[in-house]
């Protein structure tokens, strides 16, 4: 519906507040979406540390990997804003480059998420009995430590994390999955704008269409800022 409305200038361009209808709608929507993600995050947080069986966050999370994908998403916000700035200045080529790179970074982020989900689903407990240091094991791994008694050197057991496994899986996949869905929608939106611009449909005068997509994109980014901190970085502190 976005660039759409480029053509839909409507009859009330002179609005009471001087603000554009669609931009006002977009901000009201973002305020509303805060409540959506707020509820999902609240669900995650109140259930944190309440799972009855593992694996738990500290078993599956890989902070370095997620840091990279977080960085990619942050940078995509920068390229988005640069695309918008280029458009308002009439630099169409720069605009196309930046908007495409935004979409590509968005897809990279989704790629990371797919990789991460698969990785979690294939999680294996790995106990190196030969060099067993119980202190360094996670709570979940400790429940396997006694299997070393039989004189096994090391062993692995498949304990994949799925949305059904425990409360952590349920809340984690739902929260990050909905964020991923938002990113996916954003990528489709950006690609349609890019496609449209190659056909001459995006002009500096219609930059509002890009502005709205950009607002949405940055919002998805700030939601991830919260998720990265609350879910990943706090994830290792059960019982906060």
């Amino acid at each position, binding site marked *: 519906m976005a660039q759409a409305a480029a053509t839909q200038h409507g009859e009330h361009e002179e609005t009471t507040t001087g603000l554009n*209808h669609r931009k006002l709608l977009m901000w009201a929507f973002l305020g509303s979406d805060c409540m959506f993600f707020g509820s999902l995050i609240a669900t995650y947080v109140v259930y944190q540390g309440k799972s009855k069986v593992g694996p738990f966050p500290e078993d599956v999370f890989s902070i370095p990997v997620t840091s990279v994908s977080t960085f990619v998403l942050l940078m995509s916000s920068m390229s988005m804003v640069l695309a918008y700035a280029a458009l308002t200045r009439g630099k169409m080529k720069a605009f196309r480059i930046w908007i495409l790179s935004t979409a590509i970074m968005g897809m990279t982020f989704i790629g990371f998420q797919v990789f991460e989900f698969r990785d979690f689903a294939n999680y294996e407990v790995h106990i190196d009995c030969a060099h067993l240091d119980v202190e360094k094991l996670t709570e979940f791994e400790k429940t396997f430590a006694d299997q070393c008694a039989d004189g096994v050197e090391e062993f692995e057991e498949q304990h994949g994390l799925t949305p059904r496994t425990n*409360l952590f899986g349920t809340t984690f996949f739902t929260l990050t999955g909905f964020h991923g869905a938002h990113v996916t929608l954003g990528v489709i939106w950006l690609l349609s704008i890019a496609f449209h611009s190659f056909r001459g449909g995006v002009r500096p005068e219609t930059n509002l269409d890009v502005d709205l997509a950009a607002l949405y994109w940055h919002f998805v980014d700030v939601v991830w800022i919260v998720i990265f901190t609350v879910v990943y970085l706090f994830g290792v502190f059960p019982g906060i």
Partner: protein
Amino acid sequence: MTTLSIPVPSRPVHPTGVWGWITTIDHKRIGILYGVTAFIMFITGGLEALYMRAQLARPDQELVSPEVFNQLFTMHATTMIFLAIMPMGAAFFNYIIPLQIGARDVAFPRLNAFSYWTFLGGALILKLSWFFGGAPNAGWFGYAPITGIQYNPGHGIDFWAMSLQVLGIASLAAAFNFIVTIINMRAPGMSLMRMPLFTWMTLITSFLLVLAFPVITVALIELMFDRFFGMNFFVPAKGANPLLWQHLFWIFGHPEVYILILPAMGIVSEIIPTFSKKPLFGYPVVVLSGAVIGFMGWMVWSHHMFTVGLGPVANSVFALTTMAIAVPTGVKIFNWMGTMWGGSISFKTPMLFALGFIWLFIIGGLSGVMHSSAASDAQQQDTYFVVAHIHYVLFGGSIMALLAGTYYWFPKVTGRMMNETLGKINFWLVFISMNITFFPMHFIGLDGMPRRIYRYSSEYGWDFWNLVASIGAFALAFAILVFMINVIRSAMKGEKASADPWDGRTLEWSIPSPTPEYNFAQIPTVRGIDPFWAQKRERVPVAPVAGGSGEDDAHSIHLPQPSYWPFLASIGLFIGAYGLVYYQSIVGMTAGILGLALTIVSVYAWSFEPVNDPEEEH
């Protein structure tokens, strides 16, 4: 104009008859569609209630099985709240708001059409569950874990959840639309503090909707994921806490009850000044108290949960915040009384209903304050005392005000007056039978009758008042029948209405009855509250403004044109949501995917369709 060349069927040009209604994006027609649909839903919800009252009229009756009874009370509440009162409010928003703020339409006319058709789809998903797969049976609150697949394997809950999701989309779309419309489309000079009270309450209601619905959306997503994919959000065996559902539900649910009552208060705040020939007493305070009620609606949700064991601190806090809401509510009532004080009160039917509203709302408000006391509420929670309370605020409050609004604005919509004699009969029948129905419920509640029981035995001593309540319910149904007769009769051969039959104060009375398609031939300029009254009494000219086309000739006003896409997008949502209920079957999954695809295609096509077709000649 558009660079995209998808095969778009040529857009509807001046469609007539059914197609005219299906493709309409005129806020007035959409308002009528909302009103008529909501009233039909109100009747179905009423029949569900009558069936229950018949069952409870005598002890130990077996007219319905307990399972059907559970479906009846679930459907009755869900219907009345989501399919009757909310969309009746939306009917008034749609028809009246642009007229009150001096606009020719809403900000997003096609989104408006989409809201209506999506609402209709959601309503059908819910109501058709009676015929396909069984109605939901866990109450409108759907407390976990009884909604879980383990305790509720049928499709009833799926229909309920899907329907609420679709209705949520409709409500959100409508609320965004009205926020933008009210903020951005006011006539010149109409500052926020000159807006009519009904417009103000609509704005506050829209903000409540926009902020509250995402919460229930998330709760329902979690419930559906539990049911469809075996997740654990509300599965106690996996460590989940069923109270999470209650919290999320009431974080939505309490603002929701203000979504139901604030428009009613807005309507009453329009009617009382008109029929007292006085401006609303303390206008800024009434606006502010509405805003405070809306805001405080977020701070009280756990008063629905006083008996779940939140502990003394939480119970005390929520008891106090709940009591505090009585202050802005009381302020509104006092200001209505202040408006009438010294006025010249004419007891036409709309005013009678508005006064009935005040009386019943005082009673409902006072029983609400009784509930706020967490300690003594432990005896009242989940008894008929609560049933009495909610019906005093929802029937005595919302429905009385909506009836008042119907009598008040009927001439503007149809160009004919409603019959005054029938109207007065209608009012007294509703008022008396409403009290006969619901007042005894206070007694049986305090005598220990729990809610949601399909039968009771004589030894408990609840026979007499249950019988009285049942008789009242049938009398109430008769009263509503009188209302229907009056509406139909008046619409067909009622006395012709003038533009301003009540000596009104706000802008909608300055234009002809029935409203012309373009609303205002000239966009008015506003210089204060009650602009039309000022114009009439002080001879202040309403200066034409270069709004819209900037031309004074009504025939050259360009209105947004009809469109297929909102309707098709809604159809897609309906098919998609219906299919997803049966996602386990190939047919269901296919329908789900095809429906959602239709929605996506329609939205995409819609976004490339100009509001006004350049090819079209006017």
